[in-house]
């Protein structure tokens, strides 16, 4: 079964007043953080001329499209059309929002009507998001200490020590993205090199 909540990025990679691309299953999303820190995920398409809103710019609590500067407020409703500065845009011009929560340093997205919260990841710190051109089976095949489907978890050897890791799986057209977390206190540089090594091994396995 497909989980409702999908990790689409790590909080550390989305500073204030920045927009980035995300996705839920095949749905492209514009994920953005306002100046005060609020994170939202919207359909990645400006209703005016279809431009990706993830290319847009954040001013205060609004996201604006890079094409014509149309400004959307926190509710997804168009607040301002620069070509017509005196006009109050009709409330029907709005961008569809997804549910979006930030928890344990992970940005999770789900369809708007989703109830409940994503799985809690206590005792873990965010590490890196990393993309692979292989499938989950290849990852599990080269790292038997890991298990799971949507979240690969286990105790692995990092720098000669057993370390708890969690790799949140996000499928995409080119393969998958793993949003990696590791136990608090583990050297993140060593853990990052472990993830790189895991990717090399898994992709080789996947290609074989």
């Amino acid at each position, binding site marked *: 079964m497909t989980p409702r909540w999908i990790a689409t990025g790590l909080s*550390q990679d989305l500073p204030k007043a920045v927009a*980035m691309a995300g996705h839920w299953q095949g749905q492209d999303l514009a994920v953005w953080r306002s100046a005060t820190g609020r994170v939202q995920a919207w359909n990645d398409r400006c209703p005016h001329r279809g431009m990706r809103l993830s*290319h847009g710019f954040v*001013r205060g609590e609004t996201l604006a499209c890079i094409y014509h500067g149309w400004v959307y407020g926190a509710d997804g409703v168009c607040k301002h059309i620069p070509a017509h500065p005196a006009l109050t845009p009709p409330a029907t011009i709005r961008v569809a929002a997804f549910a979006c929560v930030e928890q344990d340093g992970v940005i999770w997205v789900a369809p708007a009507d989703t109830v409940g919260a994503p799985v809690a990841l206590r005792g873990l710190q965010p590490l890196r998001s990393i993309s692979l051109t292989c499938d989950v089976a290849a990852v599990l095949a080269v790292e038997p200490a890991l298990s799971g489907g949507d979240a690969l978890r286990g105790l692995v050897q990092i720098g000669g020590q057993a370390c708890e890791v969690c790799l949140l799986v996000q499928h995409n057209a080119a393969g998958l993205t793993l949003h990696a977390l590791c136990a608090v206190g583990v050297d993140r*540089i060593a853990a*990052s090199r472990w993830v790189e090594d895991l990717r090399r091994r898994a992709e080789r396995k996947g290609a074989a």
Partner: protein
Amino acid sequence: MIRLYDYVLSASCYKIRLMAALLGVKLDQEAVDFHPGRAHKSVAFAQLNPAGTLPVLVDGDLILTESTAMLVYLAQLAGRDWLGPLDPKSAAQVQHWLAFSGRLAASLGMARLHDMLLYEGDIDAWRAQGHAALRELEAALSERRFAGGVWLVGDAPSIADIACFPNVALSQDGGVSLDAYPSVRLWTRAIRALDRFVEMPGIHRLHELRPAPEVA
């Protein structure tokens, strides 16, 4: 004045325009009809640069045809902080990234010329090499972030960052997305937010750096 033989869509020429702008050095820019005129391959241009490549930087009797050498020259002249820290390790790392920028040009840069200006070649190979280079850059920048750093070498931007920035920031022109490289994206933003930063086509303005105009 220092003269730059320039082409507006060239990532390598942009390196020099950007470096000069950040340093506050004014260049005498001479546009070369690279496309469609192929003026850089003309007999007349070969007198200046037999390799027929752009950019070319001329200052008196000095003629430079390698963009990384131009970065060193401009930084030596106008802002030695941009050379990066001078301890052995850092100095070597700066050289590493200057050389690495050549790999970016040979992969992401060629993919861009293919997709945009119809250069012929193995587009799949160029993109794959581009992704391989971006993975190395992402890994290095992630480690820098874990150590509290922003830039490729040291605590301030250097010629290493400027050398690598253009072909990375323009990678989507060649069909290579930066979506899978969050640390690279944040690093390109940090460069774009620098005081006196200048754009080139394909790298748009960070409008968020200025407040919204008052609505009349």
